[in-house]
């Protein structure tokens, strides 16, 4: 062999080897730069799009997808794909599918029955595929590269994909890690809410006991204050009658009476008694309400007038609401009788009122309560003109521990408990409407006559 030919063949061989080395170098660069890019991706979609770009740099494909096995190992779903025309869909493939068992270089998909049965129409129009199974601590995946060309992927492409497998598995682990972190944060927030709720409940129980004790202790002195005031009112009436009678029989006392301003005293004394009696009645009502809300026997079911319960609740809520909104009651003329637990239903009404009040932030709100009879049920509509509920929150408002309030300020239990109580009473609690102009909740409870 002559020297020039020897050199030519040597150059060909060295060129071939150089290209191999360059390919490895290129791969290493891609792996390091790609991994950095992927790790810096915050968004799910960006992460996969960067991963697919890296793969496409070394293996030409027409489409790519990652299929994830479901937790029950009986179905799978497309986790990510490119182009977007490959719509994510549930796939009828289980853990025994070859995709999850081994890497495959498939030159003609039409020859493969299981592929045709299980992966069409997702991969319709593609002729060959290169697949690789990936297993992470959390799940099983299959990476699938598709080509419209017959036998498009070489053994070299398969080897490159194999060398990429750790990289791709790292990407998926990264994704899983993020999901776990999100789950962990969610659980932590939930745990915090539960702890807050327990604290609150304990506090409420203590306050309830204290209130019951105070109510009991106040009830007796208030009883004789009220009783004495009535007696005093009666005595004063007698004094007043006697003074009137004396002045008419002895006109000479008129000057003396005038000097003592007896007319004024007589009138003022009656007013003072009336005001004191009104104050005593109000104090009695407050004590009665406190006793109702802190009643230890919550299972007691009795016939209740929903109108009265509503008025009592409004009275309690009024202290909070009056600076923020106007309460408008539209109640039927007849008692709205139903069979239920006063404490629990009072809690539902108070909760709905407090929520409506909190939705109003401009201090000029209106909360309208309309109670109507509706097909054997009492329908209470509580409508506010507040800010409404965010669209993404609507689906979750009745879920336990869901709250839009900052951690520590809401238990996320109010609406879920209210719905549970309504349902225990054979009724329902729903969000009828919400918008930026306000929200409307509907509470339905069976009327007594139909039971």
């Amino acid at each position: 062999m002559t020297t020039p030919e020897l050199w030519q063949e040597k150059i060909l061989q060295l060129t071939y080897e150089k290209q191999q080395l360059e390919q490895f170098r290129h791969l290493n660069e891609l792996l390091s730069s790609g991994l950095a890019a992927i790790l810096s991706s915050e968004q799910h979609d960006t992460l996969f799009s960067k991963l697919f770009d890296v793969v496409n740099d070394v293996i030409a494909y027409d489409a790519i997808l990652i299929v994830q096995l479901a937790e029950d190992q009986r179905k799978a779903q497309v986790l990510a794909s490119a182009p977007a025309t490959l719509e994510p869909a549930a796939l009828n493939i289980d853990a025994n599918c070859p995709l999850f068992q081994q890497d495959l270089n498939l030159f003609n998909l039409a020859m493969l029955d299981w592929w045709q049965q299980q992966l069409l129409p997702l991969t319709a129009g593609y002729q060959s595929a290169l697949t690789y199974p990936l297993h992470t601590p959390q799940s099983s995946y299959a990476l699938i590269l598709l080509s419209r060309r017959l036998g498009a992927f070489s053994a070299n492409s398969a080897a490159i994909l194999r060398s990429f497998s750790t990289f791709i598995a790292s990407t998926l682990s990264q994704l899983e890690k993020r999901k776990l972190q999100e789950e962990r944060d969610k659980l932590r927030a939930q745990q915090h809410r539960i702890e807050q709720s327990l604290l609150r409940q304990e506090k409420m129980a203590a306050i309830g006991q204290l209130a019951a004790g105070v109510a009991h202790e106040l009830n007796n002195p208030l009883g004789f204050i009220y009783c004495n005031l009535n007696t005093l009112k009666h005595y004063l009436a007698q004094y007043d009658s006697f003074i009137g009678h004396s002045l008419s029989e002895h006109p000479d006392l008129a000057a003396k009476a005038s000097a003592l301003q007896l007319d004024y005293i007589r009138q003022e004394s009656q007013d003072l008694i009336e005001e004191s009696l009104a104050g005593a009645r109000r104090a009695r009502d407050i004590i009665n309400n406190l006793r109702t809300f802190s009643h230890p026997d919550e299972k007691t079911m009795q016939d209740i007038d929903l109108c009265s319960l509503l008025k009592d609740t409004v009275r309690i809520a009024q202290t909070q609401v009056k600076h923020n909104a106007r309460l408008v009651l539209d109640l039927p003329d007849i008692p709205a009788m139903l069979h239920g637990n006063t404490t629990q239903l009072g809690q539902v009404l108070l909760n709905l009122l407090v929520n409506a009040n909190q939705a109003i932030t401009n201090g000029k709100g209106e909360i309208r309560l309309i109670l109507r009879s509706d097909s054997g049920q009492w329908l209470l509509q509580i409508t506010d003109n507040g800010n409404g509920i965010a669209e993404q929150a609507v689906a979750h408002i009745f879920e336990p521990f869901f709250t839009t309030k900052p951690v520590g300020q809401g238990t996320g239990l109010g609406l879920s408990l209210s719905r549970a109580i309504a349902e225990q009473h054979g009724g329902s609690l729903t969000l009828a409407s919400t918008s930026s102009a306000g929200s409307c909740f509907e509470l339905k409870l069976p009327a007594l006559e139909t039971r």
Partner: protein
Amino acid sequence: MFKLLQIDASNSQTLTAALQSAFTGEPASLLIASGNVASMQALQGLSTPERYARNWIACSSCLGAASSAGVDQSSDRRLTLMAITDPGGSYGVASVAQTEGLIAQQAAATVQKAIARAGRPAELPALIWCMQAPGFEEQIITGIQQVVGDQVPILGGSAADDEVTASWCQFDGEQLARDLLVIAVLYPTVAISSYFSSGYSNQPFSGTVTAVNGRRVVEIDRKNALQVYNGWLQHYGLPAQQPGQVISDCTFYPLGRQLAARDIPFSLLSLPTHIHPDGSIETLSEIQPGDVVTLMSGSKEQLVRRASHVVKVASDNLRLRHDTEPAAALIVYCAGCMLVLRDQIQQVQQSLSEALPDIPYLVAFTFGEQGCFADGYNRHGNLMISALLFGRPQQENL
């Protein structure tokens, strides 16, 4: 996993006895066999070939085969076999009697059948190894690629006889015939590497083929092909070729089609076998009108050295790409080259043994070689050497 056997094939009885002694356990996954035509005849009387291997592929080799165990003499009656036992891999063989005009379709159907027999439907094999009667190799490659695409290496050789009398034969595990196309598909558990090269030198004489008739080159630069060829030879003081068989005379001066692999030009060789009375040159591979052909030259020294050179390149690739050492090799070496080197063929075997120390290898001397060039394309050529190396099983690499 790889075992090389030299087996007495004087007749079917001795062959059976030798096989029974060599294969006592599970049959091999694939047996690749070669030997001269006389030795191959013994396969015809083999009653239970499946007892020794699930798949067979064999073809006759000019004057016998060579291997890590030595070189056959034309008088030897023995077969050289490479047994691959790879339970974790998959292998399938299928064959068809070649029918002119239908070759591509036949090759397509046969490779599909082989893949089905390997039990890996639609899965791309790591390698396709084919052995066939000479004549239609380009169409065979076309047919195979119609099914599997162009990303799988196709290697192999065309059966040869001792005196170019078309008495060559092929064996598929069931039948021995002169006109078979036998295709094996391999899904081994080990890495593979291949290289395909000639090692001939370009000479400064070239022309464009302007007329062909099948595998006959009729005109070069619109002139009679023989006149042009003889004109080129004249520059070297070589005698002009006359109509008749010229295979030995032309071995050192074949025609080369100019191609390029990754910007480096290389030549695919076509060996003249016959000069026809009309001055057309028949070759062992197809040349198309428009192809630029160059006079190539080789030497005995080149032919001795290049076998080990090709094996070395394939070994380097195996190390570079798969981080493994060779465990076995299959080599197809042009019979035309072997014939002109007959006295020095031992040197070729020795250089191969040096390049593949203590590694079993089988060499078939063929009338046409198929392989995958550095540019990634599968081609059929003459005066070529095609080497396939198998890497070591993974635990052996540890």
